[in-house]
């Protein structure tokens, strides 16, 4: 399994370079530049997409990054969902087998639930505080567009940082998610926010749309990631366990 190693930024020789991932910027998006960097470190190409545009610019996949779009004052993601670009994303992501791969990270996950591309919702953390910590997760489904570079049940450590990260859904939905293998990531070594059934990330039925609360884009570059890795000892801030999310979609799209 081993996992992917970091690839040099903008590596022209990479076969993955032909894949272009669009990263959406809303007013209040914060981790958009980080997501672009993560795609490039994974060997792909990335461009910024503007929430107000009506054109997906032929990207092969889309990332909705973390942040506090529109301040998150009403409900996280509630206002962004109505952005013109979200209409394009919603229809492109709902097209069955060859639908557009979409990843929502943190606020992006919240946007996807508000847009009903993913079930459930996020409410305030059970302890009511913002929490930033290095979080261990288990990849429960290595079959999605965004997880195929991991082994089934592989564990990873990536940063978690949010205030409204408690995943909730009714029991029927939760059972359905479990039954269909759509729980993609689960918190291990302690649930940081009270999420139902320790769920950290889920997918739609087709597996092209994935949302997760922790931040893989903050664990892609040795020296700037978490202090630990599920793969063994790493140096200071040496964790790069998040890179596999980005290599997964690139490899899958290259075929």
């Amino acid at each position: 399994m081993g996992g992917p190693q970091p690839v040099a930024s903008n590596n022209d020789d990479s076969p993955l370079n032909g894949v272009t991932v669009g990263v959406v910027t809303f007013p209040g998006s914060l981790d958009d530049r980080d997501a672009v960097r993560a795609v490039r470190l994974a060997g792909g190409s990335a461009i910024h997409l503007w929430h107000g545009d009506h054109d997906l610019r032929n990207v092969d996949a889309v990332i909705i990054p973390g942040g506090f779009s529109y301040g998150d004052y009403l409900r996280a993601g509630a206002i962004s969902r109505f952005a013109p670009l979200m209409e394009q994303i919603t229809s492109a992501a709902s097209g069955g087998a060859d639908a557009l791969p979409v990843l929502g990270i943190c606020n992006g996950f919240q946007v996807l639930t508000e847009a009903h591309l993913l079930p459930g919702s996020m409410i305030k953390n059970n302890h009511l505080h913002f929490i930033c910590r290095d979080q261990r997760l288990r990849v429960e489904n290595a079959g999605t567009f965004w997880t195929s570079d991991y082994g089934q049940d592989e564990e990873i450590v990536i940063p978690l940082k949010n205030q409204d990260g408690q995943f909730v859904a009714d029991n029927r939905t939760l059972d359905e998610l479990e039954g269909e293998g759509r729980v993609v990531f689960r918190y291990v070594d302690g649930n940081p926010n009270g999420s139902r059934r320790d769920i950290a990330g889920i997918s739609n039925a087709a597996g092209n749309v994935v949302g997760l609360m922790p931040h893989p884009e903050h664990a892609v570059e040795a020296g700037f990631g978490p202090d630990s890795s599920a793969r063994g000892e790493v140096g200071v801030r040496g964790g790069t366990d998040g890179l596999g999310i980005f290599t997964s979609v690139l490899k899958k799209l290259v075929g």
Partner: protein
Amino acid sequence: MPRIVVDVMPKPEILDPQGKAIAGALPRIGLTGFAGVRQGKRFELTVDGEVTGEILEQARHAATTLLSNPVIEDVTRVEVIEEDGQ
């Protein structure tokens, strides 16, 4: 100016962490008369002019699409209020 009030409450079956924290804090300040607390939202939409049926319809639409998320919340009221009224 007239206002339309929209009340949104967490669905009864959804855990309400804020309400729970308040329920836990009340006895600590000596207030023991309550069996539970739920925290919701109250929106006041100001209308410039008269509240027509169409505007009330807009408010209802806002209530269910933007101001609440049906997965976790119920709209419990959409109503025009008198000046200084509730």
